[in-house]
């Protein structure tokens, strides 16, 4: 699958061009999510768009990198209604702040949560830990 990246301020322009240009017409947003690369300083978070041209049956992957300190990326909800929940999910798990989203609140996690759980700094629980009183679940 063709994969390319663009500066994050350009994401809306790129997506709009891919949508409008008759020979491209990527008008179906298949998927939107993020990946956290803690080692890439200055571009820790990567927002990945999967687009699909249904007429010619071509899929592309488009990436935008952003700093984790200022994770502001323009929202694509005006272009794709499908992006609404997917951007909320990405915000929920990675803390990407989608500028211009009509209702950017958590979607799957509880509202009171104050961290972004899919970032790499939150490891899963150590499976060998013994200090936990978990007799209810028989561990």
């Amino acid at each position, binding site marked *: 699958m063709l994969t390319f990246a663009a500066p994050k301020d350009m994401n809306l322009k790129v997506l709009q061009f891919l949508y409008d240009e008759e020979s491209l017409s990527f*008008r*179906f947003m*298949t998927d939107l999510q993020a990946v956290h690369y803690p080692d890439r300083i200055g571009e820790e978070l990567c927002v990945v768009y999967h687009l699909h041209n*249904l007429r010619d049956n071509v899929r592309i992957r488009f990436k935008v990198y952003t700093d984790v300190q200022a994770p502001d990326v323009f929202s694509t909800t005006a272009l794709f209604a499908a992006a609404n929940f*997917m951007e909320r999910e990405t915000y929920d798990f990675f803390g990407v702040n989608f500028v211009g989203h009509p209702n950017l609140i958590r*979607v799957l996690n509880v509202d009171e949560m104050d961290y972004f759980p*899919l970032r790499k700094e939150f490891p899963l629980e150590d499976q060998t830990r013994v200090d936990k009183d978990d007799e209810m679940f028989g561990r």
Partner: protein
Amino acid sequence: MPIMSEDILLPEGAGEKQTTTLNLGPTHPATHGVFQNILELDGERILKATSTVGYIHRAFEKIAERRPLYQITPLTDRLNYCSSPINNMGWHLTCEKLLGVQTPKRVDYLRVIIMELARIADHLICNSIVGVDSGAYSGFLYLMQYRELIYEIYEEVCGSRLTTNIGRIGGFERNFTNTAFEKLEKFLKEYPEQLNEFEKLFKRNRIFMERTIGCGPISAERALNYGFTGPNLRAAGIDYDVRVHTPYSSYQDFEFSIPVGTTGDCYDRFLVRQQEMWQSLSIITQAYKKVQEFKGQEAEVYHADTPAYYLPEKKDVYTKMEALIWHFKIIMGETAIPPGEVYHAVEGANGELGFYLISDGGRTPYRLHFRRPCFIYYQAFPELVEGGLLSDAIITMSSLNLIAGELDA
């Protein structure tokens, strides 16, 4: 002296128009799953709907970051649990795409049989539940026993029924037994008649038609913009099917058509699913015929030759050194996954079920994302029901085939 209306003292604001706020869900029996909808009602008419999801979120994407590939299969079971084999196969196919594993044709055909059975099981539930919600309970009772036959086939192949964990990377855990094929034949023989009867009960039923035509419609353009896939998109008139657009598991070897609707309302969704069941039956028949053509040694093939990912037979583990090593490495999850990035989609019962897998060369995925069709089309729900009646919202919800497990991941 007659009482004048001015004399009656009403509380302030009582004469103004009032709306009711109704909490539909999260444990309402009519929502068939853990969904919450806060509805603003004017009488019975819905003015505004706000949906809340996430009640059974289980953080599969995070859990998967610690598991070797074969341990992720049981997580995919729990996405759309009405058709878990499709999820399992989708996951195996994703892994095979990343690892570059070529599966033998017989495995592909066996997979197609199982996936299409799963599609029938899923559509059968959805359509009969639409019947239940519109007041026709008996259709559900007729069809439900045939899901039992499908589950018996799963049971014969993999040992479990609902959360199947069926298959392995590269193929199946064991060859299909004769009993499995006998059960399949029984199903192929008995089901069409029953499905026909079910269809007769609903298709031209005046009550059912009046109840579902024009209920929760969506235009093709809006459906595309909302990221609809699967039967719900096809009911709106767009013939997008992953099985045809990007064939996987040798779907290109089969003859079938994609049913499409026009208005995208509940009735069209019902008809599209109904027609898809017939198509699935035809695919299964073709696949079964192709499977029967394998003779002798070829009929014994049920997995690809990938020792690094496919568990060796138990008797070899006890007698052969190499098999023992592979067994240990696989079970302990010590096989490194080649670095790469793949997106693979299969036509799930609800639409395009995608797996986006990133590996950095470690033993577990660096990141795994599930594209869950339910999650994406559920956001259109307020638009579908606003302006309609409360009872229409219930039918719309069940005809979209919302599965909470898939929605929340």
